[in-house]
């Protein structure tokens, strides 16, 4: 085991590693000394404990994640509230109850996250000012039910992926991690329903409640960033498309993929003034 190669690999992966620890020289020094004192088999533990120190979650990190989630929920909650109150948007009677329910649940997420952040001693992020036309990209979002549905689907699918991207960052806090899983599931239920409405009303006749490949379901390139990466079939080194009974299509559908905080902020940033 050549420690220098390992450090080089870590540095390449995370250039900020030494800001998290000490200088490279000090870390190398520490390990070189240790190498003489501890058995080779114990090195993984020592290295693991160093990395754990570098990447373990502080309350500040958890609050940053919760504020990120809160911003996303502000967006969704206001999006549905605006749609429901827009006299220019005709939501079919059959769907009014569904969108009222979705709006209530997004508002509940805002409250829940705000209370959780406050409870952890943090300061909840303030609500941004939104422009749901995305600076004119979706000019009829509150006039045309189809365009409204397209954005609803995009926000919900993005929400699912956004929570997923933060799960490992919450691993040290069981209750917050469980809540993130629970909210993720509700976002997924919303996404599945919106996708089904788009299927039934003919907007996207082949659309399923789940995401196939990186397909936007006929929404188009303006939302492609919300679907990129969904075509992945490699899970923990296992090519799931090669498992017995699998196809590439179902392998992409049966795992939702994460988005990073940066990815998500770039996506929803288009709707923040």
């Amino acid at each position, binding site marked *: 085991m050549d420690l220098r190669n390992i450090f080089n*690999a*870590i540095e390449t*992966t*995370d250039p900020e590693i030494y800001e998290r620890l000490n200088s490279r020289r000090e870390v190398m020094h520490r390990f070189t000394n240790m190498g003489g004192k501890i058995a080779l088999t114990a090195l*993984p533990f020592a290295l*693991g404990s160093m*990395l754990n120190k*570098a990447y373990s979650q*502080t309350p*500040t*990190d958890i609050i*940053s994640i919760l504020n990120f989630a809160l*911003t996303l929920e502000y967006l969704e909650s206001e999006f549905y509230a605006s749609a429901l109150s827009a006299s220019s948007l005709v939501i079919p009677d*059959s*769907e009014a*109850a*569904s969108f009222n*329910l*979705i709006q209530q*649940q997004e*508002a509940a*997420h805002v*409250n*829940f996250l705000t209370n959780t952040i406050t409870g952890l001693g943090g300061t909840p992020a303030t609500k941004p000012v939104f422009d749901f036309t995305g600076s004119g990209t979706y000019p009829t979002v509150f006039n045309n039910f189809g365009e409204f549905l397209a954005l609803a689907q995009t926000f919900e699918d993005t929400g*699912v992926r956004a929570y*997923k991207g933060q*799960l490992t*960052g919450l*691993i040290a806090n069981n209750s917050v*991690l469980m809540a993130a*899983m*629970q*909210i993720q*599931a*509700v*976002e*997924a*239920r*919303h*996404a*599945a*329903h919106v996708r089904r409405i788009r299927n039934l009303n003919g907007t996207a006749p082949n659309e399923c*409640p*789940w995401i196939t490949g990186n397909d936007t379901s006929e929404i188009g390139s303006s939302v492609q960033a919300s679907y990129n990466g969904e075509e992945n079939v490699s*899970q*923990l080194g*296992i090519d799931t498309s090669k*498992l*017995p*009974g699998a196809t590439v299509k*179902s392998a992409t*559908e*049966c*795992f*939702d993929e*994460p988005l*990073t*905080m*940066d*990815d998500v902020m770039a996506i929803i940033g288009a709707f923040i003034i």
Partner: protein
Amino acid sequence: MKTFEKPGDVSPVNCLKRRQFLCYIVASAALISSCTKDSGSSGSNNSIDLGSGDVGVLNYLYALEQLQTSFYIQVVSKPYKNPLADDELDLMTNIRDHEIIHRGFYKSLLGTNAIPVLEFDFSSTDFSNRDSVMATAKTLKDISVSAYNGAAQLLTNASYLLAAGKIASVEARHAAYIHDVFSDTSYGSFADNTVVNTDGLDLAALPDAVLASVSSYITSSLDASHLPTN
């Protein structure tokens, strides 16, 4: 636009590399410590021991995926006669295919630590009757979603957590679909108050409660006594 501090955040590709690296460290440690572990083997009372630690949690999820796979294979192989929508059986077939992959994924991931193929009893479901099929489907889906939500916190390896999280939201998509087509006139059922509380949170349940609620479907005797509890 407000930006946030990004804890340990790097590009997705780099995240993956770091995760793989961390996984290697964890795997190395696990190898060293696993010599005394005898998970996945039959106990003295002929029950199947799910095992302990992350292996135990993964075996527990594997058992639930085996259960669902077995159910949907039967749904598709003897389809009920009166689907309400043209694409209903196509989508039930999709769900079957997803479950087959979930099952295969856990089996492959667990390798020699995997529990054996379990035996199931769906005699309470009339597979020729749509309502009967949908009722069982709905029960199993909602339990499955709650199981993933409760199990995530029991995993210590971040890679396993992410994988479980990736499957969990697909289970929730399935659940919403089953709710939608089962209660066609009851709009809003996809996320109604039987599955989402007033905080907007989906259900979560720990292994003991989950296994008790599906015990009538699982003929094999499972020993979950070594699973982590927090």
